[in-house]
């Protein structure tokens, strides 16, 4: 049984159809990439799964049970955690306190301090989150998400602010994290090198519709995907 099933989900904002009958699933232990142009509906999909948005049609199931009756706080308690595209940390709080917020939502076996060692940020634990470089703030978000002991982790553009070498390290890190914490990962990312090197399956959205799905190699060769998203050189 898939851990996560998004089934036929439609989400409208006024006249704009942000998601138009989108379905995809994530099997336990998979890293699933969600890619597409800006405005394709990727972050909206995250917001529907985490119940910040209620879909107009369709269903979202986690371990076979619908999440539609579950509030966002309940989503975390069931074991779904996320990071945010533009970094949503408590800016005035220390790195450690930010991670504690995750543990407060749902406690795992590892302490926030342990997790900061794991993401290699322990030496910065008493620094306020706001002064840190962008890529480092993204790592704090990752630790906060892990602190709630998730089974499903939604990562929204984790490669932001990182150079080529750091993105390669991040890829290795995400795979290691998936194995160490027995996670299933849903990854929104524009850095194609990262998506293609770590995703097991990739789903492609364009204008709220799914236009392709498959292995990274299949998707990369798909004519519709090249036209809508990758451009000629990819």
């Amino acid at each position, binding site marked *: 049984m898939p851990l996560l099933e998004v089934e036929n989900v439609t989400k409208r904002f006024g006249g704009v159809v942000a998601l138009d009958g989108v379905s995809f699933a994530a099997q336990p232990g998979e890293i699933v990439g969600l890619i597409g*142009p800006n405005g394709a509906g990727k972050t909206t999909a995250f917001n529907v799964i985490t119940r910040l948005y209620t879909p107009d049609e369709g269903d979202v199931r986690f371990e076979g049970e619908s999440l539609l009756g579950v509030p966002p706080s309940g989503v975390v308690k069931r074991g779904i955690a996320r990071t945010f595209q533009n970094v949503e940390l408590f800016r005035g709080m220390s790195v450690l306190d930010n991670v504690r917020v995750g543990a407060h939502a749902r406690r795992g076996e590892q302490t926030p301090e342990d997790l900061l060692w794991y993401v290699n940020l322990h030496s910065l634990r008493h620094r306020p989150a706001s*002064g840190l470089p*962008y890529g480092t703030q993204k790592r704090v978000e990752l630790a906060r998400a892990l602190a709630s002991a998730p089974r499903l982790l939604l990562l929204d553009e984790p490669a932001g602010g990182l150079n*080529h070498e*750091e993105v390669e390290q991040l890829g290795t890190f995400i795979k290691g994290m998936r194995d160490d914490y027995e996670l299933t990962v849903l990854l929104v990312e*524009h850095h*194609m090198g990262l998506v293609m090197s770590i995703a097991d399956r990739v789903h492609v959205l364009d204008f709220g519709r799914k236009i392709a799905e498959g292995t990274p190699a299949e998707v990369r060769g798909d004519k519709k995907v090249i036209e809508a998203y990758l451009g000629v050189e990819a």
Partner: protein
Amino acid sequence: MTALLQLDRVEARYGPVKALHGVSLEVGASELVAVLGANGAGKTTTLRAVSGTVRRTGDVIFDGAKLARRPDAAARAGIAHVPEGRGTFSELSVWENLRLGAYTRRGSVKDDAQRVFKYFPRLEERKSQQAGTLSGGEQQMLALGRAMMARPKLVLLDEPSLGLAPMLVAEIFERLERMRAEEGTAVLVVEQNAGLALAHAARAYVLEVGNVVVSGTSDELRANESVRRSYLGY
């Protein structure tokens, strides 16, 4: 050649943490210069030091005069800063955001708006829309358009590619290059997509832990072994 912008051993710190250890660099009139570096190397801080949005020591010479260490002094002197994450006012309309870009000037802004719409026709279509409802790519265009409204001599641009699809990133750089060629606007751009940045920039600087470690023409940097490995990935 006298440089339009000159940094002479500029240092900057956040509380006890020193972020720049004496950075010297130059940008010529209508020159596009890129800044590369790992997460936390001091790229964003370098731009902030120029626009006076972080405490600095050392001289910043702009357009032949020493620049006072105040953001408004930089803005009035003709420097427009497009920060990381764009910094558009999400509650205001596209048009209101653009008008704010011309805040330091009296008189009509219509001609300037027409210039902006020439580069970014999409913004004219969305003139009355709330900025927060634009897609990521459109918001980046708005941030750039707002900078142009100030008729700057120099634009400081922090990671324009952040959160943008590959095709859109290429498009933003093309517009930037056109702006430089047609309007003579100099650009100092921080960018993690080093391949693209070097394709458009005349010269670049590489920062490591608050110091310039490599600088040269884009061709020279592309030929540099360690730049290739860390930033270009080949």
